[in-house]
């Protein structure tokens, strides 16, 4: 089974702050809409590579970034349904 990894935030400001620090540290990341399975609220999440988790935890600690936790989600191939 393959997984995708996400950081969730209280506010978009925390998310953008995290994105800035990741960029500075040359850690690959993607800003994404928060997957519905992880939260019912809309807003941003950051998707990251699992191998970078230790470095990410260090950044969170060093810069005191408020996060709603690091989460994993099983990757599934879903058919695209236009809405």
């Amino acid at each position: 089974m393959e997984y995708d990894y996400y950081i969730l935030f209280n506010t978009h400001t925390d998310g953008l702050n995290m994105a800035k620090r990741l960029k500075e540290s040359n850690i690959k990341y993607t800003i994404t809409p928060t997957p519905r399975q992880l939260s019912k609220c809309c807003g941003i999440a950051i998707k990251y590579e699992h191998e970078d988790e230790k470095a990410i935890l260090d950044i969170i600690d060093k810069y005191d970034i408020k996060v709603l936790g690091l989460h994993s989600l099983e990757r599934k191939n879903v058919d695209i349904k236009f809405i």
Partner: protein
Amino acid sequence: MADYRELWQKLGMDLEKHDVLCEVLPQLYGGIYLNQENRPEGMNYYNFVVAEVHGLRIKELDDHKQQGGKVVGTFCVFVPDELILAAGAIGVGLCAGSQFWIEDGEKVLPRNICPLVKAFTGAKLSGTCPYFQSCDMIIGETTCDAKKKAWEILDDYVDTYVMDLPQMKREKDYKKWAEEIYDLKDKLEKLTGNVITEEKLHDAIKLCNRKRMALQRLYNARKALDLPISGKDALLISQIAFYDNPERFIEMTNALCDELEDRIKKGIAVNKKGSKRILISGTPMAVPNWKIHHIIETSGAMVVAEETCTGTRYFENLVDETPTTMDGMVKALADRYLKINCACFTPNKGREEDIIRLAKEYKADGVIYNSLQFCHTYNIEYANVEKALKEAGIPVLFIESDYSNDDVGQIQTRVEAFLEMIG
């Protein structure tokens, strides 16, 4: 997680129904956009805008309204954003690109009209679009019969002002359009309580031109044979241009263009060698209508440009910044906007010339002419466009579609056959 429910409630939204949209959007966006390989890093900004589409920007509109500002919704590239900005209001191009709103639209409109008109009407009636709910006024125009009559219905729900767009391009039509621009100026001044001064209008003209130039720069990057960005991503950026904060949008789009130009220098491409280059021509693609681009780009080809209202028609031609008097600026606006070659005009030879010019500029292998269902002007105009393209030796495929999933398989088959034919 940011919780915007209180704000949405204040806007009179149907939270339960809106939640259905919130539920499916992350998955749709993930499947269409986030699965692309080798995307530019600068796309993170637009991911952010989509993730916060019904959140942060709505909060910004609300803050503006709290300070006594007005929000004005538009649906067409003929409505001059410059006046809205000069009146101190915020303009938002309202989306109407989802099947989600069709059912509610059909409660008051006939079924056999364009999905865009049904969708924007449904979006308002269902109270599920926070942009629509934020609008103090909307500005419609007379670009087609369906819109023209829908404004009368919409006016029962939100203050709807209509600009009468001439449908020929004679000298008297330019004068008439300038008069319409003056009328809109009066209307916006009454709505906002702000006077549109010459200085404010000149600043707004310069701002809108800068936005156009950022989009022109983005599209120029797509002329490279090694494409630095996908057509889907470029479409998303154009769509976001309609409602994002203009200054922020310009800054982030220029930052992305720095990256794209660097990619071109280094030969970093999103396309496979030999993939076919397609020019899209036709009706607008409002958020979240990414259907045709997705089909094309998952069939091994790339979209290199869009001759549409959510493409070149939005940003080609700048407003002349030389005049500084009100009369001079209004004339400059009328001249620039009437250069747009929309199928609502007769005759409309300029559009045929645009398509052929763009196909050459973007080195397109073929054109896919995409028309929304029941869009008479674009559907009918295909006959002359097809003839002109045939004479120019440019292959073309005609697709008429709506926002539903029903015809995806069929369109995919036709696109694949077309790509094989031009191979």
